[in-house]
């Protein structure tokens, strides 16, 4: 059946034109100045075709996706070009005419379903809102149809899940419910805007499969926006690579994957090509021994966890959200004293609670967080952000302190001109580098990196990972690297710890963990990582169906 769908690729790309965007120009406002953020993009979409838009943040993907609905976010305006949807120019249409199309003929699926569902209304009320509001169906029929869509999208308890509120269901389920919401009027076109980016890989597989399936069932055209080439390869018939608001390259999916032409397109593979050979280590810096941890004394989030980090090495902790990765970090740093077990540092047990640890112990363990945006005080200049630990831990003051700040900036490969910048005046990658410098300033023996590259673009990620490796070589610092991204693990880990529901399910050297045979959960996790092969998802689903899915 799947191969039939593939055969129809040719038919789809030759069908009737549904959307035609010509020379689209969009300006965005920042600090009262208008900048052109989309610089003359052409885009053609046939009925039933799925087009992938790919590029890093700031490439203008979402902006173009929204423009296909005749919509510009506040602070943006469409300044030129035409957007012809089914013969009608959306730029010339009145707001009322555009509103009539939105939801009914062009629908949108947003990145974060948790934020895009209104917390005040039940899921079913929001699912049927479009169909009822646009007078497509009456309330009763719309509800019956919504339940049918829930079933098709393989949501659990499709008859009753709609009566729940958004916060009562999981992220993956919400994302599927949002797809049902988009489908409620059987639109001609759906814009998928990074719909699986916020999901775990294991959840992503199911959501991707459900979305691909339903788009095929109703022969809906779609624009699939993502920064992940491997994901878009599963979904799209054709791919457009964008950068800085311009088209870089466009080709049918298979062709694009087999032979990308532009140098920029090739860099989108960047992190995946980075693979450091593993090293073993004998001298143990940190040993977490048989730790249990609970929140509020009731919910057990860690159970019998034992983890070792050798000096000068990187131990990656992988697992989906809720597996206890970040809780482990909280236990090590003393933010959450364990219920049972000990944390040994350089062979000596650490006081359980943060407040009982002396300054020198605190200095030796530092942390870097996922979101540099929230981890930096927006009103502190780089000089103070990095200077503060120098003063606090090492007692450096005045010129001595400034000299060391400049030295650290050099170490993280940033210009010393940035020393008086505020975080808001730095790029995402620069901010994360500042966070690294702040951790480094304390001259630590262990740095806990909590998803430090997850929020960054591929190419920036690569830079950060290389920097971390370089710093490790220079200072012999150890990393406990928490991540859900297997590509990152391949790139920098020496050892891997796989966690699932608060337990360690496997640990060992990188090659051991990554090569079969795997324990069931590791197998599920590793097999869920999308590969640069347009048939990957199809094959995976067939294989899982044959075997019966691992009971996760």
């Amino acid at each position: 059946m799947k191969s039939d769908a593939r055969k129809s690729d040719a038919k789809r790309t030759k069908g009737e034109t549904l959307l035609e965007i010509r020379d689209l120009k969009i300006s965005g406002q920042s600090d009262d100045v208008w900048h052109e953020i989309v610089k003359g993009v052409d885009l053609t979409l046939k009925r039933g075709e799925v087009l992938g838009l790919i590029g890093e943040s700031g490439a203008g993907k979402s902006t173009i996706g929204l423009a296909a609905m005749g919509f510009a976010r506040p602070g943006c305006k469409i300044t030129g070009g035409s957007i012809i949807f089914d013969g009608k120019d959306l730029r010339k249409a009145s707001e009322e005419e555009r509103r009539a199309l939105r939801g009914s003929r062009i629908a949108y699926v947003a990145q974060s379903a948790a934020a895009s569902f209104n917390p005040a209304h039940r899921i079913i009320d929001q699912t049927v809102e479009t169909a009822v509001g646009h007078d497509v169906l009456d309330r009763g029929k719309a509800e019956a149809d919504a339940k049918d869509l829930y079933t098709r999208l393989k949501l659990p308890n499709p008859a009753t899940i709609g009566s729940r509120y958004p916060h009562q269901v999981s992220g993956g389920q919400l994302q599927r419910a949002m797809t049902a919401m988009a489908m409620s009027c059987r639109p001609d076109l759906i814009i998928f805007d990074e719909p699986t980016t916020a999901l775990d890989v294991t959840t992503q597989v199911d959501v991707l499969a459900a979305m691909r399936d339903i788009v095929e069932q109703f022969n809906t055209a779609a624009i699939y926006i993502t920064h992940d080439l491997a994901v878009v390869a599963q979904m799209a018939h054709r791919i457009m690579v964008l950068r800085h608001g311009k088209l870089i390259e466009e080709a049918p999916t298979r062709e694009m994957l087999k032979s990308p032409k532009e140098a920029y397109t090739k860099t989108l593979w960047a992190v995946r090509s980075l693979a450091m050979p593993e090293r073993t280590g004998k001298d143990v810096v940190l040993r977490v021994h048989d730790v249990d941890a609970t929140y509020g004394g009731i919910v057990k989030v860690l159970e019998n966890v034992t983890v070792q980090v050798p000096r000068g090495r990187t131990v990656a902790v992988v697992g989906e959200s809720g597996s206890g990765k970040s809780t482990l970090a909280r236990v090590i740093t003393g933010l959450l004293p364990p219920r049972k077990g000990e944390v040994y540092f350089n062979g000596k047990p650490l006081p359980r609670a943060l407040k009982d640890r002396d300054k020198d112990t605190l200095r030796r363990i530092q942390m870097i967080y996922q979101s540099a945006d929230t981890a930096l005080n927006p009103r502190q200049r780089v000089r103070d952000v990095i200077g503060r630990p120098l003063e606090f831990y090492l007692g450096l003051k005045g010129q001595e302190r400034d000299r060391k700040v400049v030295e650290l900036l050099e170490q993280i490969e940033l210009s010393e001109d940035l020393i008086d910048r505020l975080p808001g005046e730095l790029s995402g990658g620069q901010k994360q580098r500042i966070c690294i410098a702040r951790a480094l300033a304390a001259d630590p023996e262990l740095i806990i990196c909590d998803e430090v590259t997850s929020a960054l673009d591929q190419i920036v990620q690569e830079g950060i990972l290389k920097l971390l490796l370089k710093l490790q070589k220079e200072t012999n610092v150890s990393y406990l690297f928490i991540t859900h991204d297997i590509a990152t693990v391949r790139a920098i880990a020496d050892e891997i710890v796989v966690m699932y529901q608060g337990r360690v399910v496997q640990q060992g050297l990188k090659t051991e963990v990554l090569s079969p045979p795997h324990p069931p959960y590791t197998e599920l996790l590793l097999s869920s990582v999308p590969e640069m092969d347009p048939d990957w998802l199809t094959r995976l689903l067939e294989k899982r169906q044959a075997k019966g899915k691992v009971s996760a």
Partner: protein
Amino acid sequence: MHPLLRTVLQRLGLGLITLFVVSLIIFSAIEFLPGDFAKAILGQAATPETVEAFQKEIGLDKPPVERYLNWIGGILQGDFGSSFSSRVGFRRTVLDIIAPRLWNTLFLAGITALVAVPLALGLGLMAALYRNSFFDRAINAATLTTISFPEFFVAYILMLFLAVQLRWFPSLSNVSADMPFFERLERSALPVLTLTLVIVAHMMRMTRAAIIGLLASPYIEMARLKGVSPGQVILRHALPNAWAPIANVVAFNLAYLVVGAVVVEVVFVYPGIGQAMVDAVRSRDIPVVQACALIFAVTYILLNLLADIISIATNPRLLHPR
């Protein structure tokens, strides 16, 4: 037990504790006031004997703790004690003095709330819907103007134009208990209007700000991308998530209608509880002052409790736990 019910009971318990503390403060604050009330009331001509007799009559000779317990015990049974203006054979209970006044004040506050709250919410929603338009700016400027003038000034201006020149409404609002409803309403018109002008700005601006603060949320963008009309975006998608801050400001202003209306009452000679308290302070009628203070505290606590309950009840995370 349902978590909502549990929270409500918790808040109610906290309210009672607050009330107890407030009653202690009220009682002791008056206890610490300098001077002897009996002497002050009897005046210069008082002999030690008459002072003692008077103190005995009104119970001032007993120790403070006993008096506090008597006072609180009485209130719990609905007896607020006797006014100091009572004489042998002619007992005036505090309740007799306060009850009709409290009813008048609640009437005035109730009518004002019925006018002002919907008006403020409506204007706030419209201002949010047409934000930065001429309408938005005009309504903001107008409400800011009315709140910027002292209340008595607004009151006299209204009296000058609407009562003296146009003769639409009576200038004095001396309502009485046996007055028919509509006459009472007509007499109260000017104080209602004055108080409305005083409180509308605050509530309207909060409504506008609470709604606009939500308009950047992803779910609002989602609603727009679903083709929901601008009015429905505000009413169906923003407002249900904005009740908590709005309810708090409304509660604060309603409490003000009961507690702070004294200036307006004086200007329009409206026989409300504010005036009763001022009179009692002047004549050192301590039981009446205490009762008024306690009623004001209850008003604040109850209205804030109500606002808290509304905040909780409109938050589905609390109302429908996982």
